[in-house]
């Protein structure tokens, strides 16, 4: 069994502000990330896939297909976007923290997985987001439906 990981990048802006909290509380909680004009990051996204290696090809995943899935459903949708105003997932009460971004990415990949990988393998294993080189968030695919 192998775990194959591909690395992608996208740049996006966001603002951390919860509609369920007052302005003062938002400022206290999120600090500079609550700036009303927003700010941005160069996100680094790692997508890991788990599976056995095919006896003929010696590969556990067709990386061209994985790239098409991740670029089509995640990178293209997120890159050079304002996450708060342009992504329906963050239009309501869900704050575009990297935790919630990770869940959204995982959900998008799982929803479209079978179109690209209809067989038993490979399976999505985990999603890892570097918001900055020092802040990293990792979600196991089992953590969401």
């Amino acid at each position, binding site marked *: 069994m192998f775990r*194959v990981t591909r690395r992608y990048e996208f740049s996006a802006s966001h603002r951390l502000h919860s509609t369920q909290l007052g302005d003062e509380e938002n400022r206290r909680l999120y600090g500079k990330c609550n700036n009303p004009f927003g700010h941005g990051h160069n996100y680094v996204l790692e997508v890991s896939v788990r599976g056995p290696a095919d006896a003929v090809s010696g590969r556990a995943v067709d990386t061209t297909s994985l790239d098409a899935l991740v670029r089509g459903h995640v990178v293209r949708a997120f890159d050079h976007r304002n996450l708060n105003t342009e992504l329906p997932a963050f239009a309501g009460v869900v704050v575009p923290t990297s935790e919630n971004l990770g869940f959204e990415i995982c959900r998008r990949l799982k929803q479209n997985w079978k179109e690209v990988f209809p067989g038993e393998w490979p399976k999505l294993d985990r999603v890892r987001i570097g918001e900055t080189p020092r802040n990293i968030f990792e979600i196991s695919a089992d953590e969401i439906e």
Partner: protein
Amino acid sequence: MLITRKIEFSASHVCRSPQLSDEENRRLFGSAANPHGHGHNYVVEVSLQGRPDPVTGMVLDLKELKEILTREIVEPYDHRFLNYEVPPFDRQVPTTENIARDIWRRLEPRFAGGNNKLHSVRVYETPDLYVDYFGEPCSV
């Protein structure tokens, strides 16, 4: 506890299976199927699991680990054309998966029976693609 040592080697390879047609190989492996070969600067991270020795405070002396990795991996792999010069890649496609498994097979006997054992082999083909192998059965 896990300890990890990183090594590097540079090698060339061709990804094509003799069981597939030229057309299928091109579709499956893309530019990596170019019969003349191409190369990578591979980075390998080898992790051992163990308990620190009560006297030395070390799971394994990293100097010793470096020597093992140099002898078992760097010497046979570095500056080689994997398909022609490094078995089993005369009969197995040298994908990152198969390289990780071959490195595991070369290393596992070196860490059998001590107070440490091989935990994982991570092989970076490029900074954007890496494979983790944990041996069989799956412990991912």
